[in-house]
């Protein structure tokens, strides 16, 4: 840890968010260096989705700041749309566009938001689909695909604007267990290719395996962060310990994270 840390790609400073006067995010400080993969864990209702939506400038924040490549960005910016192109987000519920084919889903943002020619946009979409093993589904409509395939299309769609950071919000929670593996595999290879990712997840084994850093969120606060080994092996905060104990007792005989 002697070398100076590289400048973060994305940085959240003192981020606070209220819904109806209730503090849902309470002073979040979090930054991701280039190529870093950070997993957000925490019980449901702890604020993971809200954090990702705020970081993606999909919602205004009440205090704090968001920095992308060192520049401050905000929901209220005139060029917030431009900033969103540099951030990719994938939702739990896929949210594919049902009236467009798989190829059109992926090509839409390059064509419309990046103003690529239709041919160039389509070429980029085809390459992405191919790299995610979806080439032969390009002409299908989303509702003809399995949940796992739909979620991988959503990942391809989010990558189509060549974002600097990919935000993923429990993207396997709506999937049958048998389909979870293929989506996690996709994320793993994205991590290997150097994609910077912030991943909210309940898949502890996956988090332990793929993350450079784990952040435990509770009640809108970042309670503890550290390497997977440290967080899963020897959590310091009693709240983290309690959460992990509960998670392990639920997952029961399944291979627990961090041994």
């Amino acid at each position: 840890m002697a070398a100076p840390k590289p400048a973060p790609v994305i940085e959240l400073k003192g981020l606070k968010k209220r819904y109806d006067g209730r503090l849902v995010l309470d002073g979040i400080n979090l930054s991701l260096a280039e190529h870093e993969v950070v997993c957000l864990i925490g019980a449901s209702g702890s604020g993971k989705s809200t954090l990702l939506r705020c970081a993606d400038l999909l919602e205004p924040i009440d205090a704090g700041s968001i920095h992308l490549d060192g520049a401050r960005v905000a929901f209220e910016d005139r060029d917030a749309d431009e900033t969103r192109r540099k951030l990719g987000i994938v939702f739990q519920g896929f949210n594919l566009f049902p009236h467009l084919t798989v190829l059109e889903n992926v090509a839409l943002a390059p064509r419309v938001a990046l103003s690529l020619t239709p041919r160039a946009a389509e070429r980029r979409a085809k390459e992405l689909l191919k790299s995610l093993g979806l080439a032969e589904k390009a002409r299908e409509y989303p509702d003809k695909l399995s949940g796992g395939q739909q979620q991988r299309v959503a990942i391809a769609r989010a990558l189509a604007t060549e974002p600097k950071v990919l935000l993923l919000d429990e993207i396997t929670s709506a999937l049958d267990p048998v389909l979870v593996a293929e989506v996690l595999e996709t994320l793993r290879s994205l991590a290997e290719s150097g994609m910077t990712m912030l991943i909210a997840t309940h898949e502890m084994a996956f988090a332990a395996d793929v993350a450079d850093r784990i952040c435990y969120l509770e009640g809108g606060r970042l309670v503890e962060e550290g390497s997977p080994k440290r967080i899963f092996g020897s959590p310091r905060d009693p709240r983290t310990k309690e959460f992990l104990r509960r998670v392990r007792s639920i997952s029961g005989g399944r291979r627990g994270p961090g041994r």
Partner: protein
Amino acid sequence: MATGPARKGLLVATFSTLVVAALVAYTVGSSPAWPEVQKAFFDGRYFSTSLPAVAEAFTINIRLFIIAELLILPIGLLIALARSITAPALAPLRIFATIFVDFFRGVPSILIIYVLGFGVPALQLDGVPKEPFFWALVTLVLIYSAYVSEVYRAGIESIHPSQERAARALGLTRIQALRYVVIPQAFRRVIPPLLNDFIGLQKDTALVSILGVVETFKQAQILKAASFNFTPLMTTALIFLIITIPMTRLVDRLAAKDRNAQLGGTR
């Protein structure tokens, strides 16, 4: 072909319909004044003599509702979009659109036709047209743009907000998200209610007769006044039915198809 139970159902339906029709015909036909009424409303001679003039005047109605519809479809969409604007700076636009819709949906059409069709030309402003056809067109466009904008708005709101959010997350502007994601999905859902309003518009073209436009209803009234026989009015009614019934069936078919598509699709 119809199988056992379906065939039986069809037979029962046919039979009961015939019985009811016979009862109605008997009741009406046996009333002492029926011969008089029949002569006044359903006289074959007057039907055939009135048909050419009434049908020709109907081309005015057709012109009116086609031109009106071509204006209503885009204007209604613009009003719907104006009402869904959230930018504070453009609030006046939203407020104006809301008042517009409330007003033209809330006041009886016939009053609006009177006020605009007689009132505005009476102002004798320079450059303001005086032709009744023009004012008939303007009133129908205003009234139906208000109705149609509500149809569009309901269609836009029927698309789940997560769709717009997914589009915005990709970096599309609000307008682009509406243009490429929300409106195309909303459009399919609004076709049946749009056609319904279109049928209403066709019928309401008869209302502009009060401005002196000699469209089919006015023509029928003229013939009725000349002959003291109501049959020309029935001729007009028949012409309207010939146009509107197929459209009504089309609306039903499209609506049923849409229901099936939604049941068949996922989520």
